[in-house]
């Protein structure tokens, strides 16, 4: 009989040296404990029980088909991330940021910088090579600068695309 859950009560009722489950059944922690203490083996379709992949329901499959077809704001041609840098101006800031981008094989597509008195702000848009781990690159960039020096913020271009383009 297909069942969604195997509870401790089920284990007590079914008993036996082993309980055979189908691929959908989720074993509660109490059932696993009850089975272990009674020496009952819980078996899935492919050997020892392993929790199944969560079944998100019939709508989830439809949603997986629908989501990619939802219109998105048009792409900005290979731009992967937007880096903004704000802080106290000194020689070498641009070099430090672009060196980090270069090391990650990012192609700087656009760059602008303004200085106001002793301070500056800089905006870079970069193309990130496919497959590059975004969050590692983001961490590297955000660790640049320091207290009373400059601050780097890295955001995915999608954020800007969704906010400013329809």
């Amino acid at each position, binding site marked *: 009989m297909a069942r*969604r*859950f195997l*509870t*401790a*009560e*089920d284990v007590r009722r079914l008993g036996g040296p082993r309980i055979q489950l189908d691929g959908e059944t*989720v*074993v*509660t*922690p*109490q*059932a696993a404990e009850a089975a272990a203490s009674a020496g009952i083996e819980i078996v899935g379709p492919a050997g020892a029980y392993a*929790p199944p992949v*969560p*079944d*998100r*329901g*019939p*709508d*989830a499959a*439809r*949603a*997986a088909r629908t*989501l990619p077809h*939802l219109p998105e704001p048009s792409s*900005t*041609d290979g*731009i992967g991330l*937007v880096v*903004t840098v704000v802080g106290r101006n000194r020689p070498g800031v641009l070099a430090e940021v672009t060196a980090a981008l270069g090391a990650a094989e990012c192609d700087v*597509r*656009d760059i*602008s910088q303004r200085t106001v008195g002793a301070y500056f*702000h800089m*905006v870079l*848009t970069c193309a990130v090579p496919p497959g590059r781990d*975004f*969050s590692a690159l*983001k961490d590297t960039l955000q660790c640049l600068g320091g207290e009373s020096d400059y601050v780097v*913020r*890295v*955001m*995915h*271009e*999608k*954020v*800007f695309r*969704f*906010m*400013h*383009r329809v």
Partner: protein
Amino acid sequence: MPFTDSEILETVRMFELETFDIRTTTLGISLLDCADPDLESAAEKVYTKIVHHGRNLVEVAGGIEADLGVPIINKRVSTTPIALVAAASASEDLVPFARAMDAAAAEIGIDYIGGYTAYVHKGFTRADEALLNSIPEALAETSRVCSSVSLATTKAGINMDATAKFAQVVLDTAKLTADEGGLGCAKLVCFSNPVEDNPFIAGAHIGIGEPETVLNVGVSGPGVVRSALARLDPEADLLAVAETIKRTAFKITRMGELVGREAARRLGTVFGIVDVSLAPTPAVGDSVADILELIGVERTGAPGTTAALALLTDAVKKGGAMASSSVGGLSGAFIPVSEDQGMIDAVAAGALSLAKLEAMTTVCSVGLDMIAVPGDTSPSTLTGLLADELAIGMVNQKTTAVRAIPVPGKGPGETHDWGGLLGTAIVQDPGAFGCEALWRRGGRIPAPLQSYRN
């Protein structure tokens, strides 16, 4: 087309300086298949299902945060109303369900879980009654579980017996959590016309028309709207104010749409709704009251406040509606008094009374939210206060809610600090006159004429 500097800096400013964030990603999980005649087995299933589906919620939200660079503050779970799940077990004591939910929330690393809920706007099942009876103990014993009760709808009218019972539940919960200033009541809310896809705590739960699992997103951003209005010419007329709010709400909602799609994709579930609500926090500048004051009232609560709030709520909805095809939940402006520094200041200055707050709820998205009342408020007075708010929702075919906290040992004008996001409250004065005769009558206030639409 690449972005201009001003576009980029506008977005960065929103996140860096204007406290913009995705307030919540809430995974709705249906628990209907957890019903079991055996109470213990049912609670076991509830725990197991929540953990099974919610296990990677925090990780997925964290991943999106890292990949997009957008802060996601809360990760939460909403469930099927527990009264429906518990009905099969015929138990009088439903606290084991609350314990199971609490333990599951702890296991998956979230701070709140909503769904200890019953719908009793027309009447009680045995399980509904058991759930209401168990709310005080459930909320006192657990720290993450939130409870909500539907007491009225436009279609059904107001169940005054249930309202009176709920008032007693609120008072009992306050008593059981007296050493924390009645904090249990911050996790307890009643509704007129509840929405079934609300991602925001304390009212979060998923209704019976919802899918097996669903990902709902709540965006916030009073700080962004406030800053946009601060930049607007003070002489600009109200059409310009509405347009500014609308454009800002559009941008805010787009982030919700982006995060919602991404989170649903990564979790492998359905993207439900974006709740476009201006949800304030005690942080400076993250205040709905500040927005009302920028629109032009001297202090929130002054004449003109309800009109300004009507403009704000409507403009937020319009901006949101253009930004997402999935706007849902409460979507409007929240006015949780203790959580909004501007509101607290307005109460302290004597500008904002309970009566004015009630008037404001006729045009905002929720109701009397995080209202501190005296600890010795009588059950009849509290029932009257709830019923007034429910009536506003019922007649206007909108959602209204009450989250009232009778602060034990405190009287009108006294202050209580719950700390953190819940903020500071000044105890409101419900007035010297009661409604005991109305309370004693009980029964049901019938559905209004405008509900007969078939």
